[in-house]
């Protein structure tokens, strides 16, 4: 049955489930393509958080003096960077995924949501590798995990939801208006600096900041990721608020995507 279908609606999750194999193959494609013909191969998954860690630890930590009160500041930054790299990259690739898969969109039918969701696959792959290295680094610095490690998958899930949701929203906007591409590029950069949990210990933040900052989903989730990975005390308030904001954004992203996806093939 094919008819014009107006209005807002939730995505058809049953249909999405039927297309899970396509999701799997698209994610696999992205992973394979990314590592095809690169010398460093899988190492690239680690290069980005490591390099950012080095820069932050040197300039913010040493030169800026932020790292004075934080034990193992490089480890602190790397742990947050692992989460942020996943978050930022997933938003970036998901946002561009629909336009870069134009041929698929105009030549074949499947739930369009599969395309941005599949890009989370690459990010998750990298996240697992970078987290493994984090374990190694933590052991080297003599930081041992605690029971809070069990929270890590939950934090990763919340991160995925938030990142995919925002990516889905942006991907739909970019189809209609290519200008959002440029917004994306520097928006993600600015966002990183607007996420102080990446480079500042919670104690360095004021009361008000601690109250409001978790409305930036990256803030609370990055902190929660580091805290659960390194066995620090988990800031439940920040985690809860950020996870909820992320979920709300994801919901809105999917609703909006669903609303405009039927015109993708016309306008792309």
């Amino acid at each position: 049955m094919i008819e014009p279908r107006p209005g807002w609606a939730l995505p058809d999750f049953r249909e999405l489930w039927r297309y899970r194999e396509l999701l799997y193959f698209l994610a696999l494609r992205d992973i394979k393509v990314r590592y095809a013909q690169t010398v460093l191969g899988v190492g690239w998954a680690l290069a980005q958080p490591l390099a950012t860690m080095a820069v932050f630890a040197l300039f913010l930590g040493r030169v800026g003096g932020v790292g004075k009160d934080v034990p193992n500041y490089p480890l602190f930054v790397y742990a947050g960077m692992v989460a942020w790299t996943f978050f930022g990259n997933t938003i970036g690739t998901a946002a561009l995924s629909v336009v870069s898969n134009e041929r698929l969109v105009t030549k074949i039918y499947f739930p369009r949501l599969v395309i941005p969701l599949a890009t989370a696959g690459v990010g998750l792959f990298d996240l697992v590798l970078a987290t493994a290295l984090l374990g190694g680094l933590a052991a080297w610095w003599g930081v041992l995990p605690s029971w809070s490690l069990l929270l890590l998958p939950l934090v990763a899930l919340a991160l995925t939801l938030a990142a995919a949701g925002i990516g889905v929203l942006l991907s739909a906007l970019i189809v209609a208006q290519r200008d959002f591409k440029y917004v994306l590029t520097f928006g993600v950069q600015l966002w990183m600096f607007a996420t102080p949990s990446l480079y500042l210990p919670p104690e360095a933040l004021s009361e008000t900041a601690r109250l409001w900052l978790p409305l930036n989903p990256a803030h609370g989730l990055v902190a929660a990721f580091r805290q659960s990975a390194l066995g620090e005390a988990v800031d439940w308030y920040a985690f809860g608020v950020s996870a909820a904001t992320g979920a709300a954004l994801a919901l809105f992203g999917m609703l909006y995507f669903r609303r405009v996806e039927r015109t993708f093939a016309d306008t792309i």
Partner: protein
Amino acid sequence: MHPAIRVQNVTKSFRLGTNSGRPNLTERLLGLVRKPRANPDNEFWALKGVSFDVTPGEVVGVVGRNGAGKSTLLKVLSRIVEPTAGRAELRGRVGSLLEVGTGFHPELTGRENVFLNGSVLGMSRREIAKNFDAIVAFAGVERFIDTPVKRYSSGMYVRLAFAVAAHLNPEIMIVDEVLAVGDAEFQNKCLGKMREVARGGRTVLFVSHNMTAVQSLCSRCVWLKDGTVHADGPAREVAEAYNRAAAGGGGAEVRLDAHPGRTLGSVRAMTRVRVCDDADGTSPAVPMGGTARVEVEFELDRPLADATLGVVVKDAYYSPIFGINNKVTPCPPQPGPLTAGTVVCRLPRLPLMPGVYPLDLYFGDRLNDFDTVHNAADLTVVAADVFGTGRLPPPNAGPVCWPATWEIRAARAPEGTTDGP
């Protein structure tokens, strides 16, 4: 019986001028069909109230000019684009093939691409795995299956892509012009596969510009014109009508009173010539193997007892292919001496390839031709499935299309076989 496909009043408009991302694309698409910038920031109706039903097992061809809306119709039926109004119902699993190799990625190996492309087309992983060997064998790329497809020749690439699609097993198959790509061998393979699918009792909707293929594959044909159904009926008739329209209607009647091709010293006797398909007597284009009719009207100032007409059919380079007159072939006697009349010449089983053939006319009496007009009119021949195979001889093999019978004999009983002659 429920129709497999029911299209009711499907309408699709594209909004133009809101495409901020790629104005070039819109303009390019638009330029195909309308004068550029005729109606800026307006709507363009690609489909206007299209309706038809397809019963299960029917193989329907969809034909039409560029921009008629064929691909748009198939996209609506494949759920790629949403109709602006109207509805369509499809019963059964739908497989649509709007392009060969959608989703192929050059960096991935043949094997990986088969799985990716298969799942893009809607096959499950189990299904692909089950058919994997058959797909690879059909494509003939066994040795290269673990090589990235960017190292494939373009022929291998297309073969592998088509092989995947050919093993799709839907109840309703929607195919858009995939026969238009690839070399002749590939096209034949596609056609063979399409025929197999068609005979297998599946419902097929098939867009093509290849009228021979449409005639041989389809039982029915829908002709789209400017987004509406212009004709819908038996494939042979609709395809022939379409061919005729494509050949340009009406131009086959030529006045000869002041024709520039008349030779010096001719007596002006022929006044008009009409070339048409003898089957319906009106259309200017004759299908291959059909009967052409050449009618020549004459007027004289003295009665003529033995009107004689010679017709020479020439190729595109104005070399004669054959000529005939009513002296060498039997002709019933004319009804007495005439000062005006018409000579009708029928050329049955026309052995010509599709094309336009100029005619020379020689008119006179038994003894001499006193009126000669070169290139008096054109005979237009359009493609038809004369051999019943859906294929025609290559177009560069000359203007004549002639049948043959075949036999292949071994020099002696081949070694190692039991079924020798």
